[in-house]
């Protein structure tokens, strides 16, 4: 029934299932109860590290803070995607990494001095990325340099 309720909901939609918008935007993941591995694909049937099946999984909320592991600056992309932008792999303290855009950092500066990006503390922010065919706002998340 939950799915049906969502289908008639006129509010904004997350761009991926592991982004939850309520009560405030946050990422969720499944955690293997046996080995502790964390996965962003919520519909996974088993743990690819230890083989435990989904009965052992629990859903966990992830931290909105992390550190940049590596990045690239994308200069050529699909039509409609503004370039250059920074794509980053962000390690979360929960023990999983996510891929997202890194904003509020100058892409040219990142290329000139890549070292400044490594281990940069970042925090998650959300924004409207598009409108879908039904007119719903589609919400994506990015990371920006963290104040503390």
């Amino acid at each position, binding site marked *: 029934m939950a799915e049906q309720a969502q289908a008639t909901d006129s509010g904004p939609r997350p761009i991926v299932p592991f982004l939850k918008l309520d009560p405030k935007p946050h990422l969720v993941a499944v955690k293997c109860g046996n080995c502790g591995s964390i996965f962003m694909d919520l519909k996974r049937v088993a743990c690819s590290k230890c083989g435990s099946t989904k009965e052992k999984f629990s859903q966990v909320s992830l931290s909105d803070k992390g550190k940049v592991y590596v*990045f*690239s600056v*994308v200069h050529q992309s699909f039509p409609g995607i503004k370039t250059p932008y920074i*794509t980053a792999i962000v390690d979360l303290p929960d023990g999983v*990494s996510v891929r997202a*855009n890194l904003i509020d950092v100058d892409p040219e500066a990142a290329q000139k001095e890549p070292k400044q990006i490594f281990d940069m503390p970042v925090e998650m922010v959300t924004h409207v990325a598009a409108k879908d065919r039904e007119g719903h706002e589609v919400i994506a998340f990015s990371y920006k340099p963290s104040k503390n």
Partner: protein
Amino acid sequence: MRNVYVLGTGMVKFGRYPEKTVPELGGEAALTALKDAGIAIKDVEMFACGNLYQANAMVGQRILQQIGQTGIPVINVSNACATGSTAFREAYLAVASGMYDTAMAVGVEQMGKQGLLGGAGGGDPAYSVEGKLGSGLMPAVFGQAGIEHMRKYGTKPEHFAKISVKSHKHATKNPFSQYRNEVSLEDVLNARMVAYPNTLYMCCPTGDGAAAAILVSEDKLKQLAGGRKRPKIAASVLTSDPYTERDLTLPDVSTLTRRASRLAYEKAGVGPKDINLTELHDCFATAELVHYENLGLCSDGQAGEFIDKKGGCHPDLGGCAPVKESGGLLSKGHPLGATGVANICEVVWHLTQDERAKDRQVPNAKVGQAHVIGLGSACTVHILTV
């Protein structure tokens, strides 16, 4: 398992063939390989065909419908960029197992000028994550693999650029190469940035092409080789990506390559120092650099120094441990399904002093290896010896 040898090889120069069909390209490579082997299609007992973009369209059978419908078993293989090398391995296994004495492998692809690979999918484009949740496009994915090396070891963009310079220089000697122009370090560094640190010349092109190989048992080799030197497949290894911490967000191209490499060296009974030439999967310059270490050609953290000291160059260019005499994917081209068989052709040509490699011959080559990685991920390493 029995010993297996490569009796014949064939390749269609990588390039752009909008006027040809996939079975035509594959058929031409197959006929060249059969002629090189000195046999006919009626002598082939099993055929493994690698192709990615028409993977649902029976490419292997359509090739036989061009060159000879003999009714033999055909396997159509799709395994990302490792498609061709996986087909080669299927042919190898078919002979090694004792089931067949003569098998054929063909890798073929027609990509056209399709631009960037990866990302996208069906459905409402509003939910496409490309550019909204980072980039899954190949230049960025492999850019990050290079940046991870920069992070760990202080590697510079110049190191990656030198790989492109070297690859292009090698390609000038290869008539089968899609691009045969030289580029300078400045050309590479100043070229349009695609995804940092990969500039245009550090990215392989898309293209069309085909390659084929005829594999035979030892008994068959004695009957057919007629005194010709033919390389033995000393190791044929295929791995997939094992669980590693970031693999699902930052594809880990290293762990499965290291595993495949270690298993291949063990099986062949050789080490990196015995390798006279390496064809590796340089889809991007950043990939080549990390594979120097993954394949044990230098120690961890030394890949920058390895390229600085001309480690990957032909001996005529003052190098040692030559890598990619063909020009590699960066210059020779990367028609996805063809690449894995073409790499093996190149190794065979050096080991047998084949005239198709005459202007770039590695002197006295006895042991060569071909490495391919398909993102997603699949890795093959083949070691051939004479």
